[in-house]
């Protein structure tokens, strides 16, 4: 049986689709179990948090990146390395506050919603990708950075792009490496 060269890429695509489809089935099941959108969002966030605290180990092992020295380096790392590694997309990062602790990641292509056309009418305030917020929050917490992560804009709800806002909660401490 001869294999075409494109087969390997197809297989990668399919294993990513496995994740996307599983996520969709999970959201559908949660919508059946919980009536209120806030409950589903909270549940997704909790699950994302549990995944994030474990995913960070996998990320650090695979990427072997150096320690980030500032919040903006951290945000860049999340966007350019982590998102690329796990979801295959690179969101653009912008800093949205003068104090340098609020960032937003703008995703013009979100692989998690590949198979979703639109949210059903009765689920208008469902944050479909809320798992991502929990994952980022959990992962950051494991490297001792407390943050609040939420969706600022969502393409599924009619906005132009999907935007994730990360707010780091503590001021960066000046570390003086003096011996």
């Amino acid at each position: 049986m001869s294999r075409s060269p494109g087969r390997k890429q197809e297989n990668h695509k399919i294993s990513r689709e496995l994740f996307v489809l599983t996520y969709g089935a999970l959201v559908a099941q949660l919508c059946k179990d919980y009536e209120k959108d806030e409950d589903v969002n909270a549940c997704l966030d909790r699950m994302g948090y549990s995944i994030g605290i474990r995913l960070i180990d996998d990320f650090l092992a695979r990427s072997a990146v150096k320690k980030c020295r500032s919040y903006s380096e951290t945000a860049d790392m999340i966007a350019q390395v982590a998102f690329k590694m796990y979801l295959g997309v690179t969101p653009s990062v912008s800093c949205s506050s003068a104090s340098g602790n609020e960032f937003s990641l703008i995703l013009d292509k979100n692989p998690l919603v590949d198979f979703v056309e639109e949210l059903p009418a009765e689920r208008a305030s469902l944050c479909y990708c809320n798992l991502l917020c929990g994952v980022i929050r959990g992962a950051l917490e494991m490297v001792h950075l407390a943050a609040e992560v939420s969706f600022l804009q969502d393409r599924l709800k009619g906005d132009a792009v999907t935007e994730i806002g990360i707010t780091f909660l503590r001021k960066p401490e000046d570390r003086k490496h003096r011996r």
Partner: protein
Amino acid sequence: MADEALFLLLHGEMVAGLYRAAEQGEGENGRCTTKLESMGFRVGQGLIERFTKDTARFKDELDIMKFICKDFWTTVFKKQIDNLRTNHQGIYVLQDNKFRLLIQMSAGKQYLEHAPKYLAFTCGLIRGGLSNLGIKSIVTAEVSSMPACKFQVMIQKM
């Protein structure tokens, strides 16, 4: 690819989350397995469609089972099924000696009672895949020693 880690973690979280909700009294234990299996069913249906878009038509049931054991299993779990047995009367047993979803749990008899929870999704996956290939079946799984497990497929004559 790093995707495997994501799927493994998501699957683990799904199982844990559903059983946690059940413990808090939102449903009986048996229903968690049903929910996981039905999620696997939906995913299996979708996945098999995307996967067999360009493959040739299958000759018979055995051909389909071999496809599941080789190509489907390789794509989803990065390895082939180790042993396929059949009685040629509609019952197939697929044996995987190092099942990916159980590897990180234990290597023997520890946590054996928790293993079935982690197999429900995959049973649904197989059943969904077969269903969209035109085969109605019942899929069950058994574990005697981790991480090896057996999936038993019973074809239902329509």
